[in-house]
């Protein structure tokens, strides 16, 4: 104990002379141990209480909160993704429906047009028939009149020929002869 005090005194005196000169290893200067240990224990207690009462719970809560936020955000993102997929499905469905509707409308319109067309064609056909019949009638009338004309011309010609040949023939016999010839020719 006495030496320790002496040592302390000597150390103090020396440090008074020189700013602070180490004597051997200051780590082994036992006179300072109680001082260091006292302040160390105080420091450790202070750090322990600050950490366990304030810092660590706070950091733990911040980390937990962040973890929660991240989890929530991921869940929300997942949900939004699902919604997007749903929206795409709905869109595709609507598109398919629209396409089907369009096809149906096209088919209906086509059918309507076909009906109209058929009607128009039938009407046209009927008209054409009528026109054809008329034309045929006209043609037959023309043919008839042409035959009559031929008979007339033949009669005249026969009379003329007979006259030129020096014969005379009454109109009746010529007519019958021409008619007979025409019948023969037409046969």
């Amino acid at each position: 104990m006495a030496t320790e005090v002496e040592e302390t005194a000597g150390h103090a005196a020396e440090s008074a002379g020189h700013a602070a000169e180490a004597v051997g290893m200051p780590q082994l200067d036992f006179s300072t141990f109680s001082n260091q240990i006292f302040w160390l224990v105080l420091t450790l207690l202070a750090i322990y209480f600050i950490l366990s009462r304030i810092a660590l719970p706070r950091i733990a809560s911040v980390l937990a909160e962040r973890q929660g936020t991240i989890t929530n955000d991921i869940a929300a993102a997942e949900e939004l993704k699902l919604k997007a997929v749903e929206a795409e499905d709905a869109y595709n469905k609507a598109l398919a429906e629209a396409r089907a509707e369009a096809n149906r409308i096209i088919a209906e319109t086509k059918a309507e047009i076909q009906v109209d067309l058929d009607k128009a064609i039938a009407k046209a056909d009927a008209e054409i028939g009528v026109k054809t019949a008329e034309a045929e009638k006209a043609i037959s009338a023309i043919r008839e009149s042409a035959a009559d004309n031929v008979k007339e011309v033949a009669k005249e010609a026969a009379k003329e020929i007979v006259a030129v040949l020096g014969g005379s023939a009454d109109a009746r016999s010529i007519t019958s002869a021409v008619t007979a010839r025409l019948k023969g020719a037409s046969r």
Partner: protein
Amino acid sequence: MSAEAEAETGGLVFHPMDQFVVQPLFGDGPVMWYTPTNVTLWMALTVLSIVLLLVVGTRRRAIVPTRTQSVGEMAYGFVYKMVEDVAGKDGLRYFPYIMTLFMFIVFANFLGLLPMSFTTTSHIAVTAVLAIAVFLTVTILGFVKHGFGFLNIFWISQAPLVLRPILALIEIISYFVRPVSHSIRLAGNMMAGHAVIKVFAGFAAILAISPFSILAITAIYALETLVSFIQAYVFAILTCVYLKDALHPHH
């Protein structure tokens, strides 16, 4: 020691150990247990730094952290994961205790790297208290949790029966050497690095050597930065290992 160095190199002044002297902050009186000394100052700065990082830095509780809060959270996550991985889930009850030790050592070490500073963890008195606290805690915890079953850690049941007493002796010795190695490792590392830097700084007085000296100081300073963190990490992880022994004494 410094006197010898002075005599040998002639004119060169080496005082590598002066930085470790514990002296009163005010006046030149004797260092009593309650005297505010440079130990008090640098320990207070350690507490202040920890408060700045872990309390002030996280005061906004931001979901998207600021830089300081991010560093604080990293420190928290680092130690938390270490305790969980090494000591197991039931070791997490003692997480604040290990966090206290780790934060104190890491900040004391880094503050000690400042020029003109005082490294509290370079003193065997400090590290011995830390190591003995760990040793006592772990031993008492082991006996409280497992009673005399805690002694199983000395009785290796996997080993052949003949070897067990010898192994038990070795285990007991190694168990009681733990606080010694635990404390001297930290104090020795811190003291050696700082002393070496001072020695190189002394050589800087010679013009021809000074560039090399400054380079060497830079290199050692980088190494010491690494060592400061690694020693804090080693101290904390060994505490976790000892804690695991106390919680699960069956190998």
